[in-house]
């Protein structure tokens, strides 16, 4: 009886593999590095259905959280490089090595598409005694050790922004209160638990529009169209030009070794998906800058991003290991 069953299943499998031979011949797993409802999750779940149409296949998306995304990254890196397991992630893995979180990063992967980049900004509690970036710096210098900055752990966007501020303005004496994501931190900001939060524009924009918090500055080289009248940080201090534009990004990746034709197919599908008007509206509405780059261009972007950020954190004393240990060159060298 049991033998019969096994042979029946085997036969079915055989006929199934023979019937379809072209990629994708089965559903594709998309491993999302972050939890359901987060920004990575939302971006991926809104672009993938459009990409599926172009691909003519199904992508089953799963959230795999834990250890700042390292669990998902290791899982995909360890799976077969056949294009049936994709990693849908954000910028963090490029810092795993220097933060001592793992020995793998996106260098083990081929970027299918780097979809978009976010713009960091500084927001403050409405009762904070400063309204612009300049006033904030002056206030911190006049009152050392009193202003509370929100952060999201080492290697997160706030720590990078803080490292930039430190590099440009010199070390500031602030209290850094850690949260486990910019959502909870912005909640804390509105409740007065922290005074200033470096956050991605998309996460803060609705709160600013409603007047629940105030924007201090945009960490970019020019004013943002969503926040007219808020000066770019480079206008306040030209020193930031060295580091900007900088921002967290979202991308779809496949392990190195995936056949070229599969990569090409996936790349075309996601490029097509990212062109969808609904997706574009959605991303622009949240203040993301669409990138849609792939191939060598994406690889170059990734390594430049990693060099700049890793060294910035290292110089600020926030890293666990020197980028040089991993062959990450100092920018400009």
């Amino acid at each position, binding site marked *: *009886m049991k033998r019969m069953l096994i042979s029946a*299943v085997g036969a*079915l*499998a055989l*006929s*199934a*593999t023979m*019937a*379809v031979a072209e990629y994708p*011949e*089965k*559903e594709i*797993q998309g491993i999302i590095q972050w939890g359901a409802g987060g920004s990575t999750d939302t971006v991926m779940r809104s672009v993938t259905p459009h990409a599926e149409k172009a691909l003519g296949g*199904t992508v*089953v998306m*799963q959230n795999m959280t834990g250890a700042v995304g390292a669990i998902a990254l290791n899982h995909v890196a360890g799976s077969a490089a056949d294009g*049936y397991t994709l990693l849908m992630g954000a910028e963090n893995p490029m810092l795993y090595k220097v933060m*001592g979180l793992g020995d793998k990063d996106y260098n083990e992967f081929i970027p299918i598409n780097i979809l978009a980049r976010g713009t960091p900004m500084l927001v403050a509690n409405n009762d904070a005694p400063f309204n612009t970036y300049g006033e904030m710096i002056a206030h911190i210098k006049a009152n050392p050790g009193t202003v509370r900055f929100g952060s999201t752990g*080492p290697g997160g966007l706030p720590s990078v922004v803080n490292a930039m501020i430190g590099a440009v303005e010199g070390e500031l004496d602030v209290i850094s209160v850690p949260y486990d994501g910019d959502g909870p931190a912005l909640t804390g900001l509105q409740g007065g638990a922290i005074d200033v939060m470096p956050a991605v524009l998309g996460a803060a924009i609705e709160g600013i529009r409603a007047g629940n918090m105030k924007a201090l500055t945009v960490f970019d080289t020019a004013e943002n169209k969503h926040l007219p009248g808020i000066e770019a940080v480079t206008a306040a201090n030209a020193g930031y030009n060295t580091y900007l534009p900088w921002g967290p990004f979202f991308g779809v990746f496949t392990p190195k070794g995936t056949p070229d034709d599969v990569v090409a197919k996936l790349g075309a599908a996601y490029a097509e998906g990212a062109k969808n008007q609904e997706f574009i509206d959605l991303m622009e509405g949240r203040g993301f800058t669409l990138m849609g780059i792939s191939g060598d261009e994406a690889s170059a972007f990734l390594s430049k991003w990693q060099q700049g950020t890793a060294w910035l954190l290292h110089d600020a004393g*926030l890293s*666990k290991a020197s980028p040089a240990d991993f062959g990450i060159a100092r920018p400009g060298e």
Partner: protein
Amino acid sequence: MERIDPEHHDGTSDATPGGEPDKRRPGEMVFAAVMVLASAYLVWNAWGIENPFGPNGLSSPRSIPLATTSVMVISALLVLVNTARLPLDQTETILRDILPVTVMLFAAFLVLYGVLLKPLGFLPTSALFLVIAIKLLARRGWVWTLSVSLFSLLLIWLIFRIVFTVLMPSGIVPEAEVIQFFRGLMSGGAS
């Protein structure tokens, strides 16, 4: 003394725990002692948690683990002392009341399941587990056993795999291809 009603401390409800308030059950001392040792090890381990980005002060990642494992050691020690004071329940034996053969067997099955899940895949491992388990417990004919276990497995698989798209390890069964095959049939029929 009469045999205590097993219903009284069968532990099936968390609200009425299986322990006896005034007697020590077989193996209870060992369990309590293991808890003390394990807690002590955890305290030592918690002490080793280092804050990678600052001093190990009140706000370090070490503080709460250290506090909670210390509470574990203290409470486990007190439990051990209390347990040692109680008289042993002479009416019970380990093999009959705590770890009967069936329980040990099933615990072994579960461990085996965990080992086989990845290499063999969800469907074969579960089919094997259900068939053996139900055959063993129900002692009914093969036809009945096979149909009950395979039908329920199919139901569980349909709910989790198809409706909720939970991708259990597929192992030796080319699940995804089979599904794609049916999907192809469906869309072929529809268009």
